């Protein structure tokens, strides 16, 4: 596991765990988005390859993550995402935002939405769109939970 320190210093940086679950090793997307989020001022923890949902949730817990981003290109999202959401709930991490990037067929999107996953980023999504989505969501949550 590798921590990427950001040069910017806001009071509480948004903390993001980027994970690559499943057997697939195509990590270009995961690495690019990890760097983009870091450059946008977030604190990014990249788990490396072949993480089980259990390992990802453990990392999110240890790192006090606001966001868990998973990169899946292999078609295994229908197995991985439900398990991930279930484990987060079991740990009481209901506020953690789950976002998914990769090759997700349109037909699977309603199923992922039903799990509460709104941030689904298909091929060609600009990095800025992902940065904005995370920023909006995390600020929204902290606004309601800080009182």
């Amino acid at each position, binding site marked *: *596991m*590798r921590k*990427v320190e950001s040069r910017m210093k806001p009071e509480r940086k948004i903390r993001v765990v980027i994970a690559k679950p*499943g*057997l*697939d*090793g*195509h*990590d*270009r997307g995961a*690495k*690019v988005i*990890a*760097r*983009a989020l*870091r450059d946008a001022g977030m604190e990014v923890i*990249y*788990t*490396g*390859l*072949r993480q*089980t949902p259990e390992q990802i949730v453990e990392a999110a817990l240890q790192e006090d993550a606001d966001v868990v981003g998973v990169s899946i290109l*292999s*078609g*295994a*999202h*229908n*197995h*991985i995402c439900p398990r991930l959401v279930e484990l987060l709930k079991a740990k009481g991490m209901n506020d953690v935002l789950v976002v998914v990037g990769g*090759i997700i*067929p*349109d*037909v699977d999107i309603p199923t992922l939405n039903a799990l509460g996953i709104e941030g689904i980023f*298909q*091929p*060609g999504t*600009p*990095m*800025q769109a992902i940065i904005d989505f995370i920023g909006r969501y995390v600020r929204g949550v902290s606004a309601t939970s800080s009182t």
Partner: protein
Amino acid sequence: MARPPIIASNVTKTRLSTAATAVQTWASGSGGTLSDRGRTDPFELARTLGEPGTFPYTRGIHADGYGGKLWTMRQFSGFGTPEETNQRYKALLLAGGTGLSVAFDLPTLMGRDPDHPLALGEVGKCGVSVASLADMETLFDGIGLDAVTTSMTINSPAPMILAMYLVLAEKQGVDWARLSGTIQNDILKEYIAQKEYIYPPRQSMRLIVDVFEFCAREAARWNTISVSGYHIREAGATALQELAFTLRDGIEYVQAGVDAGLAVDEFVPRMSFFFNAHNNFFEEIAKYRAARSLWAQTMRERFEARDERSWKLRFHAQTAGVSLTAQQPYNNVVRTAIQALAAVLGGANSLHTNALDEALALPTGDAALLALRTQQVIAHETDVTLTVDPFGGSQVVEHLTQEMQTGALDYFKQIDDLGGMVSAIEQGYPQREIADSAYRDQQAVEAGESVVIGVNRYADSGTGDAAIPTLYIDESVGERQVSRLEELRDRRDAARVAETLDVLRQGAVGTTNLMPHLLDAVRAYATVGEMCDALRDVWGEYEETPAL
């Protein structure tokens, strides 16, 4: 009969600067355009260019180019169960495909059986599931192994899958000496780019040398490795990095063979290469030309190869998957055609053209057929096969070829200084270089400096963005493969399987060639997962330190 090569006439300065302006981001040099830098002296060039079919083969390995034989139209294909993929192969052969190319699913590529917990949700998704000889028999049902050439894209379990193919040939009554095809067997680019590795690098190198040695003796027409730049490029490398890392990987394999006591000319002639065909047309052509020249010189000078076949770099090309867009997917047909043309003009010996729907899913039958038709149009409806290296002598291409060679030699030196490629990988050097390039690439797209039609330019045209049909692999494939595996485990001789796996384990502890042990395990219907586990027991697994 050799036809005289047609050499492109020298372009005028005016036309040259126009051409150079059109290509803004060559990666071979500083990133500027040709007009920013020096040009190749035409008189010097005329003296040193050489002819196609002669050392150092910059202009091609055949004097008559495609005059003697067209490139092999080899469409990478595999999905779902072995039955489904077998049907796709028969359709591709019927449609004029001239070679097969097997895409395996992730569990197979990672040496896991379909019932392993890590295989959950992955069986048959990214390729065909092949767990044992029984699946291999189904995959090639009705296809004679003496009648096709087969390329198999697999790396860590390459010796296991090759053993299955050899045993299948035995069963079909085909002599190994007559088998023709390629096993990718290129583990270094897995550590560098695609990350489908199992064992630590040094043990993996031993497996590769075992394949070199075994095939030199037993299957002399088989290409024992396809040293691949394709995945390196797809992971984000520039054209120059693709060229340099791939050839340096090749050098590492040759050195490993030599260190194991093999004679260079005994195994190097069966080494083949695999490059990407990307959007920068001239740069890609220059890359292929530079690759041939560098390899020929390296083999002759650094390794003192004497057999001409050791000097000749033969390569497969595949159009750039990473250039395909999910938006306006029909644009992908155009991209692929242009990329394929660059590969042909660069002298590719074998070619895969991507299908228009591959940013979304594995291709449908119709999309796969259109991809094949794309290269058939280039081959049969145009005059490109009448020429050999038609850009030979072109200022732009010659200059880029020269820059590619110089840049690659700089990388060779850096990697040599790091102690060779295995050592450079262990230090994360090529991984970091590629990750940096990938990030720069994405930033250029976001800033609009790098144009992607339908994504950051002409994105809202309102046409061409209609949903296209895509292939959907459902979960029943996994269930079928698991039950098939259970049946196999019930009917095979379990004691015989255990015995062959024990022998394999003992072999892994020592230094004996493992291929004969793997062949015995395959004959007993041991699975890919069982054979890979036997070696895991002895060698452990590799885990990388992720470099961002």
